[in-house]
């Protein structure tokens, strides 16, 4: 088992690597196309800004590479958003693996509950329905930090309520994605990563 973590110019990629270390899984952090193509599984992590990251992916010819991967791929946070069709963040066309739009959270007006953006902290996942999740994960808390979201749609694999119910996870064919950070979600997050490794 060899996992390739796609390296790019922003975000805390190291924490994904440390999480895999804790699970004892061999992995590399790389932009090398051959290494990514030949890996058993690929993780596309992310924290950062959408349009500058898409630009970086194109410059490094990683965009077409990711779209054409055949092994299981896990997009995390910005990684998931970039796997959609378009992001409002920097108004940028994205990879289009999931035919979904990424929109900015709008704070409700009036706002008696003082709802904040970014959505930051621990929230629940419900209606879980992909191999990333087993039924024991229904209703568990995971860690989010994001200001943009994907609405619920045909590829939704888990739902979280915040301002509106949104896609906490997506799944289509060999592509899996989470809006939350499994690498930062304690033991629950470790179980989700283990489920991905077992695919």
């Amino acid at each position, binding site marked *: 088992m060899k996992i390739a973590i796609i390296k790019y110019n922003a975000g805390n990629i*190291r924490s994904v690597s440390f999480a895999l270390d804790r699970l004892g899984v061999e992995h590399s952090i790389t932009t090398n196309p051959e290494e990514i193509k030949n890996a058993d599984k690929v993780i596309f992590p992310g924290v950062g800004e959408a349009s500058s990251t898409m630009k970086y992916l194109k410059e490094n010819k990683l965009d077409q590479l990711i779209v054409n991967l055949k092994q299981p791929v896990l997009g995390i946070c910005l990684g998931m958003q970039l796997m959609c069709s378009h992001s409002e963040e920097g108004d940028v066309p994205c990879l289009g693996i999931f035919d979904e739009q990424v929109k900015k959270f709008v704070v409700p007006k009036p706002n008696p509950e003082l709802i904040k953006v970014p959505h930051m902290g621990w929230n629940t996942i419900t209606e879980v329905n992909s191999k990333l999740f087993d039924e024991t994960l229904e209703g568990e808390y995971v860690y989010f930090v*994001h200001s943009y979201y994907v609405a619920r749609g045909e590829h939704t694999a888990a739902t979280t309520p915040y301002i509106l119910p949104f896609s906490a996870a997506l799944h289509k064919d060999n592509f899996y994605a989470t809006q939350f950070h499994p690498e930062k979600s304690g033991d629950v997050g470790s179980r989700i990563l283990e489920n991905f490794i077992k695919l």
Partner: protein
Amino acid sequence: MLAKRIIPCLDIKNGMTVKGIKFLGIKEVGDPVELGALYAQQGADELVFLDITATHEGRKTFVDLVKRIAQHINIPFTVGGGISEIKDAEALLNAGADKISINSSAVKNPQLINDMARNFGSQFVVVAIDAKHFDGDEWIVTVNGGRIPTDKRLFPWAKEAEERGAGEILFTSMDHDGVKQGFANEALSKMSSELSIPIIASGGAGSMEHFKDVFTHGKADAGLAASIFHYKEIAIPDLKGYLKNEGINVRL
């Protein structure tokens, strides 16, 4: 539903956890990685590590420590103390920190908030504000561990930090810190209503009820404390059980 967060704060000096009383009279209390892992296991939602080492040698030790923390702990953590340049933040990001907090350096050079947010994203930037109550609604922002008053006022400065790209505000009331009589709930509530980013309340936790109050009256998104956890006056599982019984949404 988004849970209210409980955040133990570990002050670090020369690689060890310490806790001061009103930022003076420092005592050593233990190994940060071990203590952080214990808190994570007990249900802490995040951790904050503040480096209070002043020397260059100490700074290097701290970066190494951050890497060890990231290797061993599977919940988010913020690091702060002495970060005044992009390259300081970058070293900490590369070591595995999820967020950095900036305080005095942002007061001296507010543009730093914009630069940090542009380079690393707002989610990475916590602006910490230490303030002392002056009169009525007026709070004076202080720097250097509360020792030096500045010409900034709490509410306008918090708003400015948000506009410049801060992802969160960590507000410590210097009047409440170490006194254990509860958080500065009125000021916190005002700040929470005026800003649209999350507010972490700090300074004053002495009982479990104080946490209930900071989430209900203080409208805080997270409550931070140090000594009550380090000295085992309150255990995190007990605190969270209590809050849940009181109708506060917490992660158990």
